[in-house]
């Protein structure tokens, strides 16, 4: 187990190094220039700026300087906000994305498992049909539409009630999180519902379930011990990438609900060609994703003793 964990960690570090290098190369090849703006820069001012960011050096030299700083944990200064460290940007905004992401994934996982189980139990009956219809909707409607509709509905509900039931946007209290987290987790919930349903259906007619039933075990015990626990396995597998995906992909939701998450900085940096922020957030997200996959792999061995980790 420990040897396995160590091996995976080394692999992870190599992956992150690869991500950093690939991003660096891609950025060097990307057309455009981080210093250019709507207003043209004069030669001397441009030269001063290039010296400040080390852009006057050879790309190979820049690469080694960057990697050296990365090892020291220094991601540099942003190009668009010239007095902010990328480290500060991540430290300030990732927790926001993480809170929102964790909440969304909890909604998604619990909702998905419960609804999936429900649809499987009521296969081809009314609850199944209704829920599966909603699931298809949840998967196919993009989050910017859901976010906009949710916010508009909230405005109208508040208007109707005459007082503010839930805040329309902003961040800071638990009321602010509820709707954005639901919206963010919706498509994952829908996806997990489908996954759970199909894996439940497989298990309902499995031999060991029939055996358990013929032993005379109570149905509720068969359901939670034999069916749910087995059916949950595929859900756990996709949970890791889903956590990373949700935490990093909340850009639209963050924008609509005015939430100070990291996703907004990530997307804006790409549009502005803010080299240091692109590099910093990509490497950070890359490392985060790799870590999540490793954790899920380790968890997998714990949930399913049949899986041997070595």
């Amino acid at each position, binding site marked *: 187990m420990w040897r396995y964990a160590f091996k995976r960690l080394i692999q992870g570090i190599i992956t992150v190094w690869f991500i950093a290098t690939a991003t660096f190369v891609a950025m060097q090849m990307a057309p455009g220039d981080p210093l250019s703006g709507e207003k043209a820069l004069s030669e001397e001012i441009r030269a001063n700026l290039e010296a400040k960011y080390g852009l006057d050096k050879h790309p190979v030299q820049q690469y080694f300087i960057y990697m050296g700083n990365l090892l020291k944990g220094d991601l540099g*200064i942003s190009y668009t906000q010239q*007095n902010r460290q990328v480290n500060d940007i991540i430290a300030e905004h990732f927790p926001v994305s993480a809170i929102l992401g964790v909440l969304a994934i909890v909604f998604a996982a619990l909702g998905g498992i419960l609804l999936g189980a429900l649809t499987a139990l009521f296969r081809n009956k009314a609850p199944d049909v209704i829920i599966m219809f909603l699931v298809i909707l949840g998967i196919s409607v993009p989050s910017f539409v859901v976010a906009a509709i949710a916010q508009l509905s909230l405005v109208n509900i508040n208007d109707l009630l005459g007082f503010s039931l839930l805040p329309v946007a902003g961040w*800071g209290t638990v009321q602010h999180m509820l709707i954005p987290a639901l919206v963010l987790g919706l498509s994952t919930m829908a996806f997990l519902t489908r996954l759970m349903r199909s894996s439940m259906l497989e298990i309902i007619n499995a031999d060991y379930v029939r055996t358990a039933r013929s032993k005379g075990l109570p149905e509720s015990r068969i359901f939670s011990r034999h069916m749910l626990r087995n059916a949950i396995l595929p859900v756990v597998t996709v949970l890791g990438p889903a956590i990373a995906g949700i935490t990093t992909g909340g850009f639209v939701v963050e924008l609509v609900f005015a*939430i100070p998450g990291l996703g907004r900085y990530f997307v804006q940096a790409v549009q502005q060609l803010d080299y240091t922020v692109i590099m910093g957030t990509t490497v950070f997200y890359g490392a985060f994703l790799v870590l999540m996959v490793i954790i899920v792999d380790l968890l997998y061995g714990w949930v399913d003793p049949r899986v041997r980790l070595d």
Partner: protein
Amino acid sequence: MDTASGSSSVLRQLGLYALLTIVGIALLMWAMSWIASVTGSAERTQTAIDPETRSASFLLGDEPPQLDSSKATDALSGMVLGHVMEGLLAYNENNQLTAGVAERWDIRERGATFWLRRDAKWSNGEPITAHDFVYSWRLAVDPANSSQYAFLLYAVKNGEAITQGKMPLESLGVTAIDDYTLEVEFENSTAYFGKLVAFSTYYPINEKFHKSVKDRFGADADTLLYSGPYMIENWVHGASLKMVRNPHYWNPGRGGLDIIDFPYITSDPNARLNLFKDGKIAIAGLSAENLGEAIDRRWQMNAFAEGVVFYIEFNHRPGRVTGNRHLRRAMQLVNDPAELVYKVTKLPGYLPGKSLFPVWVQGVNGFFRQEYPAPEAPVNIEQARWHLEQAKQELGLDEIPPLILLTGDNPLSTLQSEYYQDRFKRTLGLDVRIDKQIFKQRLEKMTAGEFDMVMAGWGPDFDDPLTFGDLFASWNEQNRGKYASSELDAQVRIAQRSVDTQERMDAFGEIQRILFEDAVILPGYERGIVYVVDERLEGVVRRAVGPDPDYTFARIREGS
């Protein structure tokens, strides 16, 4: 599973799980709310207007990128800085230049003197002195500080040479004669210097404070020292920004708001309107889709010309057919900005473009465009075709090759470029190829000259026609099509050097005429905005140059 009792017990189990889930989530959210309260904007005023605390809430479209006044370049940072900083001179509620930190001033042909008021203080209670200006102006041109707006200080003697590293910082033509007298030497005579010192690059910076926070200057609320009517009390990056009155400001009677709060930061237009509808913010810009709703709800609506002009620029580099005047004239004669604005883009508040100089620019006594009406070319397809034939002859071409129209990737640019494509094809039979590029890539192509026509725009840096007037001077780096005319250059020089208002305005009039007769640009539109204001709020100042919107004169109506 078929037995009724079995199925119901399973359902009970499932229900139990669901209950546990809800309880678990509730606990989790409770735990998280205190984590979030550290990163967020909890415990804020919950309404747009609060007469009790005399506070008003607004929305910021984005995080202000740069609050170091020596480096700030964008309008949003300029807006925030305009509330919390004050320069020698400032704009009042009627958009007139008036006394700021300086109470008297004298602008001469070769220099200027400013006498500072003795009661002007920083937010820590220390007096604002002439040394603070000397320090910040030197900082702006310091190569080590690498400010993008160093060029605004080129009006001051040796500013440009210092930025190039050819002269020491101390040689900048600004001296503190004593704590309250500032003497400025000009590089060339600069008639509009008073307007320059109102701009953020000229704001004072306290040396001791600046050195104590080093690179973090302007990064947070506590790494700034404030000279303006308000100060930032709390700034959570990306989430909120809250301004309160600066207790040491020399004019405590200014404006009626004690708190100017920005509890939301987002660029989403629908979120903005939703927050307004929910009574959370006091001002919201409207887009074309929301206009009907605003009228139905009888909201207090205002329109405002933002000061930015948009136009098509031609490439005059050798080998480009657009260097031919007849070809440009032909396109000028079929260009119909009114059709573009009223029938195609249909955006509220937009005006059809007529000139490089927008309508709000000041002339000798009144508006420049009233004193020097823009020459107009009514659509005349026949004449346009004649010019096109001339162009073909001069160029020795049977057919004009497809023209490349470089444009941005936003929906408005797309709509517009497709309109031009269709317009030039239908009227002149010209083929236009649209080259749609993301922002940075478009700039790269503009600078490299990889276009025949480009959709460009320009917003003012300071309140003088020169901010537009020198755009097509042959030496201007902003002149991406490399238009060169000795006649125009001569007029730009007059406008730069002269201190006589009449003479300068005549020069701008000439520039406007040359741009038209040489068909250097095809005017598109002047950008405008329509916005709604909470009816309890009055006195919000909008302006094309300077901090916009300006809430420092706003007050809450009596009885609300």
